[in-house]
């Protein structure tokens, strides 16, 4: 390891430790925020070490026939689903299912195209910033931050596209301050999405109050483990079997079922660092939920603040500390309670746009649901920063950090991909992490609907890049 990289790793980690102590010295409530910093740091290290990028899962399958990442994610899902079931069964979870519907699929397709163009998913782009990849900075700043913020705030001519049924349904919700419903997204949220059913498989099958075993059967086994195992077998048959069986038949001659199982195992263990990180990512994501829940219990956040509907939200602590301007009219800020990427980046975009003179509080997304806290008091934003710095430390420890300025076509791909990711993560209320990974593992079938969309989008993105690269290769080969 280069000495310079070692020193940088110590400096980054040391500064984060110092920041954590500073927060604690100001107010114990900030420990809630510090928890997000360090889970983000852990995610960043694991993502960088395992090259763990959701974009690469379907993209590398279609582009290069490589199942490494798809396998890693499915392993992570299996482990995470078991932990989520245990947490749900013991009432120690912060997870909640999302409104179910076709919007998840459409959103997933848009996000899927975007992640292929940008060269990384929402979490992947963050860890790649930590590796020094400035194309990912473009994707995050212009797409996930500014693009998202503008997307949820657009009104004007776009309001003419809003169906009357959404307007009627939004207006019927009289508890919402009317002045907050101003953009097309506000009508979408209040007049459509909030009317869709929300459920987990355990509750759908077993009714109101599932038993411990019901959570494991419904949410983990049926919604996560069985689909993951089926997908592993499908991926093996289409992308991995041919090469393995050819080699095996040369060595052994006649083959049976045992050889097929060995083939699946060989596929799982082909990239040990990715598969190992799959297990760890699943376990840490589960631990993250447990720790946040523990903090909510410790700070007695389980009771709604008078006049609001949302308990267990960092907005309560901000209000207690006197930062009322950071929270929404109902006293909340964006506080997912688990691994989540995109909304906090939208908040950064809104924060910047407000400093440029735009009013970003006059809508539902920021004004009523998520707020625009000062950046240093934004808990989920610290998770994103933690991912960047965790990945940076890991990249430096393995001498892989290199600052790369984007040039030429990469600028176009980075910005356009980022914008599509920003747009594709809003109607679904989440990205590859919040909409796919957490939900699929938490018993919410929405995760798979969004995941299917992501795969379709990735397929379209790969088709485009195949065409583009073929053209460029043909030019290069003219000289031969």
């Amino acid at each position: 390891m280069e000495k310079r990289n070692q020193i940088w790793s110590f400096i980054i980690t040391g500064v984060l430790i110092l920041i954590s102590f500073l927060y604690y010295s100001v107010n114990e409530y900030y420990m809630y925020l510090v928890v997000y910093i360090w889970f983000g740091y852990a995610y960043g290290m694991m993502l960088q070490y395992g090259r763990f990028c959701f974009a690469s899962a379907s993209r590398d399958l279609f582009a290069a026939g490589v199942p490494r990442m798809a396998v890693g994610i499915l392993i992570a899902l299996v482990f995470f689903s078991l932990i989520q079931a245990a947490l749900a069964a013991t009432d120690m979870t912060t997870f909640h299912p999302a409104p179910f519907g076709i919007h998840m699929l459409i959103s997933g397709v848009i996000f899927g195209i975007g992640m292929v163009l940008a060269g990384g998913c929402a979490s992947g782009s963050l860890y790649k910033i930590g590796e020094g990849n400035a194309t990912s900075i473009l994707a995050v700043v212009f797409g996930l931050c500014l693009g998202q913020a503008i997307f949820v705030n657009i009104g004007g001519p776009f309001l003419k596209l809003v169906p009357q049924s959404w307007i009627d349904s939004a207006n019927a919700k009289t508890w919402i301050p009317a002045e907050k419903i101003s953009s097309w997204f506000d009508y979408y949220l209040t007049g459509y999405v909030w009317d869709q059913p929300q459920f987990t498989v355990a509750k759908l099958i077993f009714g109101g109050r599932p038993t411990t075993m019901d959570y494991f059967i419904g949410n983990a086994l049926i919604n996560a483990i069985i689909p993951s195992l089926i997908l592993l077998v499908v991926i093996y048959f289409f992308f991995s079997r041919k090469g393995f069986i050819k080699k095996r038949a040369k060595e052994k001659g006649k083959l049976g079922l045992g050889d097929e199982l060995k083939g699946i195992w060989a596929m799982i263990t082909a990239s040990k660092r990715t598969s190992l990180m799959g297990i760890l990512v699943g376990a840490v994501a589960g631990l993250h939920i447990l720790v946040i829940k523990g903090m909510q219990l410790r700070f007695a956040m389980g009771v709604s603040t008078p006049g609001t509907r949302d308990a267990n939200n960092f907005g309560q602590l901000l209000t207690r500390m006197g930062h009322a301007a950071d929270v929404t009219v109902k006293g909340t800020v964006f506080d997912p309670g688990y691994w989540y990427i995109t909304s906090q980046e939208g908040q950064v975009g809104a924060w910047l746009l407000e400093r440029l003179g735009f009013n970003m509080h006059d809508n539902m997304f920021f004004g009523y649901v998520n707020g625009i806290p000062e950046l240093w008091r934004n808990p989920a934003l610290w998770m994103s920063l933690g991912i960047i710095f965790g990945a940076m430390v890991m990249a430096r420890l393995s001498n892989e950090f290199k600052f790369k300025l984007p040039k030429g076509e990469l600028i176009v791909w980075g910005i356009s991909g980022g914008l599509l990711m920003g747009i594709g993560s809003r109607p679904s209320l989440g990205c590859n992490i919040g909409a796919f990974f957490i939900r699929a593992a938490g018993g919410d079938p929405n995760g798979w609907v969004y995941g299917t969309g992501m795969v379709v989008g990735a397929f379209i993105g790969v088709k485009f890049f195949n065409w583009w690269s073929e053209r460029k290769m043909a030019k290069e080969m003219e000289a031969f």
Partner: protein
Amino acid sequence: MALKFEKLEEGKYLLDVCGYVCPHPQIYCKKSLEKMNEGDVIDVIFDNPSSGETIIQMCDGQGHEVLEKKKEGGKLIYTIKKG
């Protein structure tokens, strides 16, 4: 940053995709191998660490042999023989 795919001599190629990020290095590597004959050798130079893992697995799955993996500064150089 510019894509460079050169035929150095008969059966020996060079692909330089430094500056490119995912998924370009792996796509260009796959396409280069498709253009070559069995037994030909290529040096793939790239600086996007995430692509390395995918290139190795792609070679393994498609029967190509990774003869050498080198690291020079921030650059990775893989020598691959088409199988």
